[in-house]
């Protein structure tokens, strides 16, 4: 590999040709401040519009300061990262950015986690010269079911655009206008709701400021908890337990399942349940559907569509409703675990408890912003009453815990309640990319072959590679499985399926890179893939420690079928646990 030698802050360094000054400095342990820049590490995607200029450094022999994030190292370069000129320039740049930024820090949803705020602190900005007479740009605020766009707070780093276009290939957001009126917006500056946005929330996850945030449902949850006529129950998705701790200063990958259950009980939920129970249920329905389609296919039925695609991810569902509307009969008809939980809670559980549907409030804690939208879909309501009343993100739960004066770190572990809190290891791994299909394989194998699984761990389905495939031997029958995470990868895989190039029996897709552990509602990871890997490892650890690791062995699932549903894909199961998809048009529906 060709390398170049240069000097940064009087220290020699040798780096591969093409390395940026910013990255070269990093190898020396020098952290040059950056704002617009974003490095998505393993994905090999960088956002470096070179727009903010916070990262400037002095390069000997050059008249102007150079933005280190987008300047490549040259042989013999002499770089200084903290001269007086550099420090003054950074502060001036920051003052200019802030002169057109609302001073809302006291009430801003991002306060405390805002990179702009942190940078102002770091650079020692104490006043903003000229702000008395500087004109401020104003822009309408856009409310969608999942995401709020407050463009007055946008600093045009365009990270969201990179996520939406390059990573997710959705293309809902783009920089529009110029100068003062420049923002990132959907086409024709329409609301997000009218764009092809999937609500995956990846733009929210990387926005350095309060310009993109989730709709905060915690006030509604608090109101429901305070209402004596309501029974309020909560379900928590698999990915929460592997990330919530980060909001309380714990290391990424710390499992907080027991503390989380304890905190939810202290907050006052009447029953603390687990979405994992519904994940096991999903496997029963989706797995049965897979085997059904497979058997019919093997018997030569021409009407049956393969591959079957997983449908637990609402971001993914939104994506294929927009982009693969010619393939709406390919995904499994099984609802997502969140919605399966809601449907069972408001029928089976409500009956058991003799609570009226209207008096049962189902709250879900999700790593996801698309789940907020999903919970509001009309087909998941009965007479206007939704199966899931409120969906809050991991970050919102952390807020709630803090608001309720709970010292999270000191909580003793507690368990989930029965019956909707019992789950298997197969359900836990739903949180990581590859997990849903691994869980499905564990069950489908045993149901199909009638034999015990020789091994539980299908490591060939795990990992962070964007598209993975593996062939699993079903006792002589080879089953081809595909896995994609991130919608850009999903698009590639699906296009190969559409064109007949790829030949799979089953495909798992998750909208978010890493799967739900990297969801748009999780503690902000700023694209750092080591955090995602730590979370995934935690999930697989919890799976390995579970006494039961196959969905079809969950005793409470058995009971549910015995007492209520009959068998998988029964008429009742169809009615409550399956859904259908809508053609949302393959172009934007602006006008």
């Amino acid at each position, binding site marked *: 590999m060709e390398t170049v030698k240069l000097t940064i802050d009087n220290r020699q360094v040798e780096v591969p040709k093409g390395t940026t000054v910013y990255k070269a400095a990093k190898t020396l342990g020098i952290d040059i401040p950056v704002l617009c820049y974003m490095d998505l590490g393993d994905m090999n995607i960088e956002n470096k519009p070179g727009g903010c200029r916070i990262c400037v450094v002095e390069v000997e022999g050059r008249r102007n300061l150079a933005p280190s994030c987008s300047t490549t190292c040259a042989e013999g370069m002499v770089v200084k990262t903290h001269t007086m000129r550099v420090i003054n320039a950074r502060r001036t740049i920051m003052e200019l950015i802030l002169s057109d930024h609302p001073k809302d820090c006291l009430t801003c949803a991002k306060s405390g986690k805002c990179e702009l705020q942190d940078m102002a602190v770091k650079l020692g900005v104490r006043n903003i010269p000229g702000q008395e007479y500087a004109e401020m740009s104003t822009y309408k605020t856009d409310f969608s079911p999942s995401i709020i766009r407050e463009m007055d707070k946008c600093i045009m780093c365009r990270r969201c655009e990179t996520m939406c276009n390059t990573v997710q290939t959705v293309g809902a957001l783009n920089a529009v206008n110029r100068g003062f009126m420049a923002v990132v917006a959907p*086409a*024709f500056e329409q609301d997000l709701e009218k764009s092809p946005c999937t609500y995956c929330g990846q733009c929210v996850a990387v926005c350095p400021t309060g310009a993109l945030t989730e709709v905060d449902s915690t006030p509604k949850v608090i109101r429901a908890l305070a209402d004596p006529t309501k029974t309020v129950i909560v379900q928590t998705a698999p990915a929460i337990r592997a990330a919530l701790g980060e909001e309380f200063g714990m290391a990424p990958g710390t499992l907080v399942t027991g503390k989380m259950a304890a905190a939810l009980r202290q907050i006052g939920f009447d029953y603390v349940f687990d979405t994992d129970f519904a994940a096991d249920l999903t496997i029963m329905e989706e797995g049965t559907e897979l085997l059904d389609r497979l058997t019919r296919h093997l018997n030569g039925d021409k009407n049956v569509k393969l591959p079957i695609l997983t449908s637990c991810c609402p971001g993914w569902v939104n994506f294929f409703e927009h982009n693969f509307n010619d393939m709406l009969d390919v995904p499994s008809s099984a609802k997502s675990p969140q919605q399966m939980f809601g449907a069972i809670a408001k029928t089976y559980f409500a009956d058991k408890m003799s609570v009226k549907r209207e008096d049962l409030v189902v709250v879900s804690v999700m790593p996801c912003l698309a789940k907020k939208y999903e919970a509001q879909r009309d087909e998941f309501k009965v007479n206007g009453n939704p199966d899931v009343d409120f969906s809050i993100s991991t970050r919102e739960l952390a807020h709630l815990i803090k608001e309720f004066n709970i010292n999270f770190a000191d909580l003793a572990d507690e368990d989930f309640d029965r019956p909707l809190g019992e789950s298997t290891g197969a359900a836990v791994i739903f949180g990581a990319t590859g997990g849903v299909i691994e869980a499905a394989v564990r069950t489908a194998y045993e149901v199909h072959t009638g034999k015990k699984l020789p091994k539980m761990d299908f490591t060939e389905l795990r990992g962070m590679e964007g598209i993975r495939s593996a062939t699993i031997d079903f006792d002589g029958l080879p089953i081809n499985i595909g896995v994609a995470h991130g919608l850009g990868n999903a698009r590639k895989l699906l296009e190969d399926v559409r064109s007949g190039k790829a030949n799979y029996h089953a495909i798992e897709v998750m909208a978010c890179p890493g799967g739900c552990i990297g969801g748009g509602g999780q503690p902000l990871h700023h694209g750092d893939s080591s955090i995602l890997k730590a979370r995934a490892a935690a999930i697989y650890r919890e799976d390995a420690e579970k006494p039961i690791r196959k969905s079809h062995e969950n005793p409470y699932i058995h009971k549910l079928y015995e007492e209520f549903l009959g068998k998988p894909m029964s008429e009742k199961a169809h009615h409550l646990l399956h859904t259908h998809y809508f053609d949302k048009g393959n172009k934007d529906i602006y*006008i």
Partner: protein
Amino acid sequence: MSHIKVELKKEDVAKIKEICKAFNNNPGELINVLHKAQSYFGYLPAEIQEVVAQELNIPVAKVYGVVTFYSFFTMIPKGQHPISICTGTACYVRGAEKVLDEFKRILSVSVGETTPDGKFSLSCLRCVGACGLAPVVMVGEKVYGRVSPDGVKDILKEYE
């Protein structure tokens, strides 16, 4: 940005497709495609942008981003009588802004807009090379020199 709903005729769609095709439907040629489309249609309403996006296989948001970034592109059709006010240095010094304000006041439109009846549109130009006549106003092809704010009324009257 406000926009006017237009219904594209079959031949309009065909024309846009033809323009895109001439550039091999290459997304890298977006700006050139838009130039061609605008010189043919006079402006680039949302509907045209959607067809372009579809043909080049890029998000409409991206097309709209480019249209709003370059001041050359417009989403509003020119009026029957496009009014251009020169705001070049000579004209500016000699009071072009006051003249512009008067047009804005009488027509109740801003720069870049068209009156609701479609009669007049307002835009600014850089030096048109007639500095001796500053401030200069053009209505269509006709040039008016030494225009004063009081004279604006009379100019507009000619087109009633």
